[in-house]
């Protein structure tokens, strides 16, 4: 076998303790444990003395209960049971959007926007609204200056990249150019590219209105017009948040399960962060299954085959052999990631049963911060490799 590169270690405590770390963004594809990781990081930071707040998105019921988030109130609440100064909140996408409209528009105009049927659609089901609102909320929390550290969970999506792309998509959408073209192509057009496709566009506008119906188009148009005046402030705000994400006080933590798909997504995201010059702290390889005893799978299976009249010992050997196989596969997957991204720091978090309370989050925090390489002596590693 070729020598495998060893990833630098992500020192979680150093990251959490550094007063320069102001924002930690946890990203990753769906189902890898982002929300739990965010919560565990915030609990640990608070208990190590930082004034921390965690913004979660759609946490599982028990995790929400562990953080005292039984009610949605779209503002941070203190987690009394935590050892330090910890606040937690759950994003209410619709309310964040409503509040943003109210903050940016004159009362009567705001009323007009909020009651537009098209606003109802876009504020609840447009793909990207959740990401946009998560950013908006992050911007608001950062602006208060109340927190030493803000930990942000990102919306569940197939791709970790959605978090970076969605706000852009949304501003393009709300920008109004397209909707003006659709509702009044003659007035809006007339220059450059449009001139070339002018006729096609009128036809297109007609086709679209035939398909989606005149009413929706009229609502959408009224919405965008009403929105237009506040849009300057709106976009400025999104840009400010984007700059915050690029500032040195921000650290991105990419979470992945030891599975090919999740690691592939993590790799895309790491590349993208470096393109955008966004600061990456490292990779959390979540829910790994390291072998806890240095005995090779082949040796364990041989011994199990030879056992008579000791069913417990035989079962132990076979489950150990499976576990070694799994651990080796996970190590290979990580090694593949590391050879393509040798500078990305990594910490591994061995799997725990479902997290149901603060103690569960503390345990994850402990595992996040533990240097696994140091817990296995070189001699043990060597033996387990045989």
């Amino acid at each position: 076998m070729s020598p495998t590169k060893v990833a630098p270690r992500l020192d979680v405590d150093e990251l959490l303790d550094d007063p320069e770390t102001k924002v930690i963004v946890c990203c990753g594809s769906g189902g890898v444990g982002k929300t739990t990781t965010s919560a565990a990081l915030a609990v640990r930071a608070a208990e190590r003395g930082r004034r921390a707040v965690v913004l979660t998105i759609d946490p599982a019921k028990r995790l929400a209960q562990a953080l005292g988030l039984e009610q949605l109130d779209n503002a941070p609440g203190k987690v009394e049971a935590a050892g330090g100064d910890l606040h937690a909140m759950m994003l209410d996408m619709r309310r964040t959007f409503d509040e943003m409209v109210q903050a940016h528009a004159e009362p009567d105009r705001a009323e007009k926007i909020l009651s537009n049927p098209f606003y109802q659609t876009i504020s609840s089901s447009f793909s990207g609204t959740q990401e946009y609102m998560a950013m908006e909320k992050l911007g608001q929390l950062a602006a208060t200056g109340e927190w030493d550290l803000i930990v942000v969970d990102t919306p569940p999506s197939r791709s970790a990249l959605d978090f970076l792309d969605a706000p852009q998509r949304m501003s393009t959408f709300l920008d109004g150019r397209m909707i003006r073209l659709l509702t009044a192509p003659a007035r809006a057009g007339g220059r450059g590219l449009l001139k070339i496709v002018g006729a096609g566009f009128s036809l297109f506008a007609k086709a679209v209105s035939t398909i989606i119906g005149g009413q929706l188009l009229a609502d959408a148009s009224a919405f965008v017009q009403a929105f237009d005046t506040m849009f300057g402030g709106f976009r400025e705000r999104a840009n400010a948040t984007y700059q915050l994400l690029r500032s040195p006080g921000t650290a991105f933590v990419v979470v992945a399960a030891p599975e090919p798909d999740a690691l592939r997504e993590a790799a895309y995201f790491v590349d993208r962060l470096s393109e955008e010059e966004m600061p990456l702290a490292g990779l959390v390889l979540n829910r790994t299954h390291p072998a806890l005893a240095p005995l090779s799978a082949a040796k364990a299976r041989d011994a199990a085959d030879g056992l008579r009249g000791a069913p417990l010992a035989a079962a132990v050997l076979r489950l150990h052999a499976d576990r070694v196989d799994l651990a080796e596969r996970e190590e290979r997957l990580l090694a593949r990631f590391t050879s393509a991204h040798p500078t990305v720091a990594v910490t591994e978090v061995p799997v725990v049963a479902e997290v149901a309370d603060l103690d569960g989050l503390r345990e994850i925090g402990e595992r996040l911060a533990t240097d696994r390489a140091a817990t296995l002596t070189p001699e043990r590693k060597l033996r387990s490799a045989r």
Partner: protein
Amino acid sequence: MTTTDWPAALSEARLHVVSGKGGTGKTTVAAALALALASGGRRTLLVEVEGRQGIAQLFDTPPLPYEERKIAVAPGGGEVRALAVDAEAALLEYFELFYRLGMAGRTLRRMGAIEFATTLAPGLRDVLLTGKVKECVTRKDRDGRPVYDAVVLDAPPTGRVVNFLDVTAAMADLAKSGPIHTQAKGVVQLLHSPLTAVHLVTLLEDLPVTETLETVDELVAAGMRPGAVIANQVRPQWLPDRSVAAAAGGRVDAERVRAGLASAGLDLPADVVDGLVAETVEHAQRVHAESAALARLDTEPTRPLPRLELPRLIEGVDLGALYELAEELTEQGVSVNAVPVA
């Protein structure tokens, strides 16, 4: 394994929708299902709609275009074709067909106008995607035989799937007449008929099982038929049943383990035995959680759901593994009946 297997009624279905919580392996299961249904000389189509090229990655082929392509030969001489449906391409297809946009179509797409139109009415996207799927299910060759014996749809995850399939609701966004409206009505009919089954992939863990059960209720409420629950990545249980509860509670007789190992010639130091015991406790906790999850699947739905099980493949899923999984499904009764000529 106590699987309820595949009831005969499911072999009548021609559209198999596969959903599941993110991370449960729904794309893998959809692919294995398409292979299993194609075995014995049938032809199936595997469709994806989320623009993620999951099928191409799984079958290790270049990204799929918006075009049906043969991607695998099934056991016993069938074939699987694959299609990545893209809402924008589907919309352009309509425009070409009904409005003759010509060259302008492509330019409009480049400008983002097509994306804009599909974004404007979120329901339109879903209608376009399901519309294309319906067209594949109902397409016939010159002899009047359906081109595909079955179509397997790798659908959006459980959180979104009912919305996605509930075209009736999406139609509220759209004009009340015209070609897309007609198509949408056909989709509603197909999705609510016995020709469609919605299968749900789950892991035997608390959260995915909860989502599965919630989705079953949502499907029923929307007038659609839940198909089978497919428990994926099921791992072997090595501990005898009688030892599981105690071990899950941390009670493993380390001395008995040590003595047993010694009788096999393994004299291990105490810390190594401790490591093995710790692994045993974790194994027992997982087995315990899995049987609790299975019990929920058995008892919580108002009507029992057929259940299939697929093993966890330690080496991960490659093309060979897909055939293995397909064979597992075939052994559990997965098949499609021959379609009578209309």
